[in-house]
């Protein structure tokens, strides 16, 4: 049992004052502004929004500044802020088919209708440090091309027409929400997807990688990866109709996976799905692989005992705020706790030694 301590107020205040000073660093170097973080560390901002589970680039940038770049601390700040917001409602499910794509690639169809666009990607860079960035450099203008904006239907829909892909079951329009009621197992796919999209990128990546290395291997191909802006629509009760209440950048990954068929399903392709706030493709691909691995039961596959198939293991350990909260609390004063442990060990030793002496 944890017994609270008191005292140390002065030291705590002073520690926080020093933290503020260290946060600022050398004052002869210009201070970072929140818009600078938002614009120039956009992928960090995206990660904080995704795992903080709140889309607001300015707040995420502020949290990164306040946390000195510790992204899990920043996510913690966003989660805490989020709980103070009154909930106006839930949006209509976003229509990602209408996404205005900055990036859209397919690893399965080279002639994807609507075309493949690479967008602003790190792919095909040589991963060499660019020392020009260390100096104040002019930014080269990105080349442009004129084009009629083509429709970009989901590539998966072409497989769907041939019945080669498993169809996605319908569900309730108001999905369960793990921010409102505790996660209970077995979880529906809706709950799993919510837990995965806000889960720790490193953890989800590791789980996804384990499936690729053979722990519940499911042979994923990226049928489509798209990044772009999507309008968010919500029914407004006082109006009696729906309006767009904003626009979010999302990354969506659909995987197509081999499936030999099972007792209940014919041979067909199956699917994994990733959808994440911001430009977050490593996370979205990882999410799709883990989503697919967790679907073994509904697809009638064998549970091979792989970690990525174990929803209790995955869902209860994916949240980095829960994890860090429990992990880091052990550094806080546990004096009473430890005192009782100390006494127990002393008593056991006394008894053990007493028995030894008696035996001799």
């Amino acid at each position, binding site marked *: 049992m944890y017994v609270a301590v008191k005292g140390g107020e002065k030291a705590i205040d002073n520690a926080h004052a020093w933290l503020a000073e260290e946060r600022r660093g050398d004052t002869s170097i210009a201070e970072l502004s929140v818009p600078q973080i938002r614009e120039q560390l956009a992928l960090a901002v995206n990660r904080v929004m995704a795992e903080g589970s709140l889309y607001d680039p300015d707040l995420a940038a502020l949290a990164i500044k306040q946390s000195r770049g510790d992204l899990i601390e920043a996510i913690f700040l966003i989660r805490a802020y989020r709980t103070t917001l009154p909930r106006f409602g839930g949006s209509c499910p976003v229509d990602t088919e209408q996404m205005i794509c900055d990036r859209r690639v397919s690893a399965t169809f080279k002639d994807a209708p609507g075309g493949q666009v690479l967008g602003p990607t790190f792919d095909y860079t040589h991963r060499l440090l660019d020392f020009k960035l260390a100096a104040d450099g002019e930014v080269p203008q990105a080349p442009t091309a004129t084009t009629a904006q083509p429709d970009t239907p989901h590539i998966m829909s072409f497989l769907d027409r041939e019945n080669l892909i498993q169809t996605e079951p319908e569900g309730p329009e108001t999905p369960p929400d793990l921010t409102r009621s505790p996660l209970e197992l077995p979880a529906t796919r809706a709950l799993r997807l919510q837990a995965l999209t806000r889960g720790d990128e490193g953890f989800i990546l590791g789980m996804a990688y384990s499936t690729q290395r053979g722990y519940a291997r499911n042979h994923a191909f990226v049928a489509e990866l798209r990044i772009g802006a999507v309008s968010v629509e919500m029914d407004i009760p006082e109006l009696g109709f729906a309006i767009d209440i904003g626009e979010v950048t999302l990354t969506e990954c659909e995987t197509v996976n081999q499936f030999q068929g099972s007792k209940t399903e014919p041979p067909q392709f199956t699917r994994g799905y990733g959808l994440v*706030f911001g430009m977050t493709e490593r996370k979205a691909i990882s999410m799709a692989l883990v989503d697919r691995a967790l679907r073994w039961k509904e697809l009638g596959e064998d549970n091979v005992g792989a970690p990525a198939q174990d929803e209790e293991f995955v869902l209860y350990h994916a949240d980095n705020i829960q994890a860090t909260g429990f992990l880091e609390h052990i550094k806080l004063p546990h004096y009473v706790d430890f005192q009782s442990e100390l006494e127990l060990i002393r008593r056991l030793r006394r008894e053990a030694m007493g028995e030894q002496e008696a035996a001799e």
Partner: protein
Amino acid sequence: MEEMNDPNAARKAWMSLLAKSDAVTLVQLWGEIRIAPEFSYLRAPEIGGVMVRGRAGAVGSAFNLGEMTVTRCSVKLISGVVGHAYVQGRDKEQARIAALVDALMQTKEAAVVQAAVIDPLTDIRRSSQVSRAAKAAATKVDFFTMVRGED
């Protein structure tokens, strides 16, 4: 497209545009039209969250993706016309102006407000979309499958 016969289509369009507008730009455009309608708040600007939803596999059952910040406001003009606003982010001034614009767009001032606020916002939005689309188009890629030597 499906809103061809929707009587609310026009209002839905301007409210959606206002929701996605840049706060600084909206405040600036509003400052230039010099209409200062008398109004009362039905709901003073209020910051909150909306749970954004997606669909499993883009087509299946709905799931909760995460929240976004939204500011809402409702106003009533002296004439009794009511304006509502839901705008993305946490800018109360943007929400107040958006609600006033929504109200005025239902009055005889509509043409003035359309020209001074809605049209410029539409143009800004379109040109930013065109500029991004042009950059995306320049990265359009055609992959060729190479013949493999060993087969």
